[in-house]
């Protein structure tokens, strides 16, 4: 067995069924050995999409996603995807080829110091010098990527190591004396947290992406019911509790729901779980949580107290800490408070307006059509931009891991390849990628990937012929000076998709859009739906640098519609 075989065997021993990759000079030995193996390989058309697909795979399934590229440009093309996975704490493993060891440092052809380049955006990285170490390095990389705060691990394999014969295949571990994530919460802190929550008059829960990574959906719901606290989420926490449920008040933040943004500052005790209080969530920190005691549960101690002052820190895995907390809370009777009722009423009276009959369609109406077409098991991925915030704001998600988006890094071009990864991970679930015309064009070549590998993905492309998010900022904050945000000269997307052999359709009518989407998702076939939308419809926001209660522009409520819908 040679180094490349060892990579394949170790990956398969770790339960990997599929990897996403793109061949090149320094990984030819690996691909030669892959030729005889049972490991499924999805050939993407750009390495960046291999990393995004691996992340989509990881986010949809909870397993570790694997991507692979050659040295030099192949490796640097992975960088955006690795950075995205780092910011959103996704467990992926990126394997890159490297020039032969005796050329390293000589500026050899397609040589790049990818370990150095990715140092700030990986959790850890390895460069095996001896093929006998490969199984253990892969084993340890899985351990590091998927425990503690999840994150990407890079393995940079010199070409001759891939060809080196192993003495023995041993799936051991590489010692990591400095890596000891705290999993269980400190029991004294848990008791204190329970007391604080029991005595709180207006408790509120903020659930972030960490709750989804920990699989703590049941636990968040249970705690919320025990202490009668509404649950707000960050973008990454969307779906941790059923957003249709009374206890959910949706996404908090710059483009958050009114019920979340207008009430978060009223709480006297915030239970924040697995979130990092990003500037897009909190707004101006001086105006955030003026009177609340903050309990912060996170697996990464560095996140506690980083942005928001915390009264009670608990380091540990969200699911396990919440279980401990539930044990402590159970038995104590907390009555449904006036606070909880007021939130439920607030939610009912501030339902955002999504019903319009304008043509071209308003984006809110498009999200309404999408909501009517998906089930609670449909996996929705989004790209980055206005359409992402429309989806995050207006689309209710019922289950964890059903809303996959690029959060921290905000990577345009993420949505479509992530959908490919999600579909590969969960072939039985329908997958819908909501994208904009700008982001889709960055990765449209992946239409060839879904055609070749028969990966049915439904793409709903909201086309406003604008770089919408920047266009909105220019409209609201830069005197309508629309510098370089007009994408008027876009291709005929229907023809573009058809040239790849993918069905495509232009839709733009009320109710019809929903029908087409519903059929496409049900038929389990790839299709690109181009939905022309109104370009001057914007998403509610607080201004950058503003407080969570500020609102730029007007918020439209469903009750404003005559008769309501």
């Amino acid at each position, binding site marked *: 067995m040679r180094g490349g075989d060892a990579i394949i065997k170790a990956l398969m021993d770790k339960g990997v069924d599929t990897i996403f990759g793109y061949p090149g000079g320094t990984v030819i030995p690996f691909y030669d050995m892959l030729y005889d193996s049972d490991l499924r390989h999805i050939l993407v058309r750009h390495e960046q999409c291999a990393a995004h697909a691996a992340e989509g795979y990881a986010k949809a399934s909870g397993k570790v996603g694997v991507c692979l590229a050659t040295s030099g440009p192949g490796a640097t093309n992975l960088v955006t995807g690795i950075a995205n996975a780092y910011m959103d704490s996704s467990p992926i493993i990126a394997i890159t080829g490297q020039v032969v060891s005796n050329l390293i440092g000589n500026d050899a052809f397609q040589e790049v110091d990818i*370990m150095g380049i990715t*140092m700030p955006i990986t959790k*850890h990285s390895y460069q095996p010098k001896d093929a006998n170490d490969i199984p253990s390095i892969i084993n340890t990389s899985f351990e590091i990527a998927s425990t503690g705060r999840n994150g990407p691990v890079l393995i940079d394999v010199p070409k001759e190591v891939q060809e080196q014969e192993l003495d023995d295949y041993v799936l051991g571990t590489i010692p990591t*004396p400095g*890596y000891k994530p705290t999993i269980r919460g400190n029991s004294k802190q848990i008791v204190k947290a329970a007391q604080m929550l029991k005595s709180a008059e207006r408790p509120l829960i903020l659930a972030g992406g960490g709750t989804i990574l920990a699989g703590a959906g049941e636990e968040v719901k249970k705690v919320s019911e025990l202490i009668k606290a509404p649950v707000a989420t960050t973008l990454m926490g969307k779906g941790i509790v059923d957003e249709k449920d009374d206890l959910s008040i949706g996404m908090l933040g710059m483009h958050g729901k009114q019920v979340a943004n207008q009430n978060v500052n009223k709480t006297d005790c915030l239970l924040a779980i697995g979130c990092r209080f990003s500037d897009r969530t909190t707004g101006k920190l001086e105006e955030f949580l003026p009177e609340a005691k903050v309990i912060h549960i996170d697996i990464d101690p*560095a996140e506690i107290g980083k942005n928001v002052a915390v009264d009670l820190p608990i380091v540990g895995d969200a699911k396990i800490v919440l279980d401990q907390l539930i044990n402590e809370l159970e038995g104590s009777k907390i009555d449904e408070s006036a606070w909880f009722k007021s939130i439920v009423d607030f939610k009912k009276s501030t339902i955002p307006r999504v019903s319009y009959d304008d043509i071209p369609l308003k984006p809110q109406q498009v999200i309404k059509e999408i909501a009517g077409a998906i089930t609670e098991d449909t996996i929705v991925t989004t790209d980055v931009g206005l359409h992402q915030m429309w989806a995050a704001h207006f689309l209710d998600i019922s289950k964890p891991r059903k809303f996959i988006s690029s959060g921290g890094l905000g990577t345009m071009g993420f949505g479509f390849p992530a959908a490919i990864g999600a579909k590969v991970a969960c072939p039985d679930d329908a997958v819908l990628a909501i994208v904009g015309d700008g982001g889709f064009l960055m990765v449209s070549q992946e239409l060839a990937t879904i055609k070749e590998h028969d990966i049915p993905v439904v793409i709903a492309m909201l086309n406003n012929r604008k770089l919408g998010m920047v266009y909105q900022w220019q409209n609201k904050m830069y005197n309508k000076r629309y510098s370089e945000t007009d994408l008027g000269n876009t291709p005929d997307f229907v023809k573009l998709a058809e040239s790849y052999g993918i069905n495509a359709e232009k839709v733009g009518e009320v109710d019809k859009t929903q029908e087409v989407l519903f059929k496409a998702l049900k038929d389990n076939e790839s299709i690109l739906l181009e939905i022309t939308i109104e370009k001057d419809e914007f998403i509610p926001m607080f201004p950058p640098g503003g407080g969570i209660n500020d609102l730029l522009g007007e918020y439209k409520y469903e009750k404003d519609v005559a008769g309501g819908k």
Partner: protein
Amino acid sequence: MSEKSHVISTLVEHKPGVLQNVAGLLNRRGFNIDSITVGTSEVEGLARMVFVIKGDEKVLEQVIKQLHKLVDVVKIKDLDPEYVLKRELCLVKVKTGKADARSDNMRISSRQKSLMYVMILFQWRLQAIRTRLIHSWNCLNHSESRK
């Protein structure tokens, strides 16, 4: 909170790239390193890195927490100034006036004058003088010299 110098002693895995990783982390998170020393430690396979970092308590807490996140960092200690004796060793090469036709004695005295000037400037104590190169060492309390 006041800005203070903190001495942080870490044990890290002794392998390539670790110094880059640690220094890169401190740099990209905007922490201010006053000094850094690296060397092998008493434990095989581990190296000791000692930094002097300036910042308030919050900065110090973040530095330590962020360092802990690096897989290669095994142990971190914020050294309490109350219980720490700090020494710095400095080797100084002083440029003196050109040798001229005057006597050798005169030349030494001109060198001594330059050296005295440097010593007074830094409040140092003279340890040794060599004729061609003049070396001066001093042990001084680090925190006091910062005042």
